[in-house]
């Protein structure tokens, strides 16, 4: 699986799915007009990668805003990750939120409830 890199726009996050390195990053804001169209190919690529290899995988999610469609898309991305972890793969999801951003932190805590096999880390980022 090749690396997927999509630059951020005002409505969609930066995507850097470096499958060979086992490092996936989503960063920015996410409220695309058609969330399914944006996240669909990413989900497919992730599934493909999970089927192919068995190396460790780290997923960094650093979103300062996402709408409910994107939340649903994130949930869809997290499910196969949790399933792969359940099958013994080393999967870490790092939920990055800005210091004091309670809304995003809370959303992260909500997502954490979906994981029991994969590691889900809450990472507070201090303002640079």
């Amino acid at each position, binding site marked *: 699986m090749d690396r997927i890199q999509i630059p951020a726009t005002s409505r969609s996050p930066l995507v850097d799915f470096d499958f060979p390195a086992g490092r996936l990053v989503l960063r920015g*804001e996410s*409220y695309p*007009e*058609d*969330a*399914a169209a944006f996240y669909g190919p990413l989900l497919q690529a992730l599934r493909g990668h999970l089927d192919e290899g068995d190396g460790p995988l780290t997923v960094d999610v650093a979103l*300062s*805003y996402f*709408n*409910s*469609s994107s939340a*649903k898309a994130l*949930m869809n991305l997290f*499910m196969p990750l949790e399933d792969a972890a359940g099958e013994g793969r080393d999967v870490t999801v790092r939920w990055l939120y*800005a210091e*004091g*951003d*309670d*809304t*995003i932190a*809370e959303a992260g805590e*909500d997502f954490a*409830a*979906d994981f029991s096999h994969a590691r889900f880390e809450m990472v507070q980022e201090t*303002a640079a």
Partner: protein
Amino acid sequence: MSGEILDQAGGARRGGSLRGAGPLRRGDAPTDLGLTEVPTTRDGGADTMRPGALRGAARGRNLDGLAHTLFLRLSPVIAALVLLTQVAIAWVNYGDQIRIEGERAQMMADMTARALSRPDWTASYGPSLQALGLDPTFRFAVLRDGTGSVVARLGEEPRGRNFERVQVSAEIAGGAGDRPAGSLTLVLSAEGLRANAEKQFVMVLGASLVLILAFALALRLAVRRHVLAPLDRLLTAMGRVERKDWAVVDLAGSRRPSREIADISAAFNRMVEGLKSGDEARHLLAELERTHGQLAEANGLVMESLGYARRIQQAVLPGPDALRHSGLDLAVLWEPLHVVGGDYFWVEEIDGVTIVVVADCTGHGVPGAFLTLIVATALDRILHDRGLREPDAILGALDEAVRGRLRQAADEAGGSDDGLDCGVCVVDRSAGTLHFAGAGLALTVLSGDAVTRIKGRRHGLGYRLTGREEVIAEKVLPLDGTETVFLMTDGVSDQMGGASRRLLGHRGVAEILLRHRNLPLAGQVAALERDLAAHRGSEPRRDDMALVAFRPVRT
């Protein structure tokens, strides 16, 4: 018939005189006046450039005329000068030869006279005279004695013009006393010299002509190569530029223009570049304006259509009457992000209880609005046909209805993966209770200085089943009549802004609500809306907003 005569008369009049002949039309060529056609401008003489005007003018003053003019002006001067110089040289030459011939003739005469200066010369002159006759130019000689009578003559006595001969005489010494013994007169022909001079003149004339011809040819060639050809290129380019074909002049090549024309051509090229970029900018601007116009029109159509859709969506929302007769002190905020949206609310008093529903369908704009119609239809069936009054039952039924309507069963292909967050309140004023159930949507209760947030289930309604959905649980709150209850979509709290560019969050919203808790309900909602806008600042809104606020009034 009469018309024809009039026409002829009119034509004759117009042809006859320009003054008082009425307006001249373009077709009336007054050829008989010897006038060439002059382009007339009808717009008061503002001589706008017409395509081809320049070329026409240039053709009228044939460029070959330049070489012609130079030749006509210069060649007579050069010819006269060359001719004059050569003639003067020939004339001096001729004079010199005449003089030398005269001196030779004198010498011959002197020598013969000296040879004859003997006492008996009258008897023995023969051989000397014969010797004179041997000279090729000899014409005539006469010997006279001391008294002047002719002793002997040789040759023919010349007649006619004297410039064709050289005549000299010499005295024969040896007479009585100092007197000469006789005289010799010698005439030599100068015809040879004259013929010589004439030949030379013809040669000079011929040489001059050849010189002038060579000069003319060289001039013409040089002018054609370095002046006419570059000018012609310039003119061609000008003609093309007139038709907005942005041609520039090539300044290199074998037909290199003279410096002045090269300067003009370079200036012309710069001018063309300027015109071209100006014209391109004008074209781009026109293109841009046209595109902008089309976009504006398309946008206008879309906005018009959306405006219409908004009226329909508003008609599906509870009207003012439903809100007035809800049995509650109630205020609403409904503001889609793009004219129409996916946020929806329902307020209705049925069977002594008030049912308040707030829903946030996935997406906003038109797709969101489609989903709200499904929700509205489903709620109508659930509340009116099926008569469900429990929030958890209502949400469960809504979940089923949406999933069925959107073909989201696991085995169905081609269905959507959309859904909604939803919160339902059932307020029973007689019992003093509020029943709440939520799916992805929380209830906010403001009581005194405290803000309580009651979360519903994390997952929303609809969507394809993942098998991880929690059961929808209902919560019952006792009411004491001091509470203000808010049911709102996440668009209200998800306001990006502030100094740190961060989401306001439900805590931020709670702070605002607390700040305005003493205002009447409508005022509180209006103040919230103002404060949200203040938080956003220059940031745009991210989502639709819907909020229903109510204060249960004890009956």
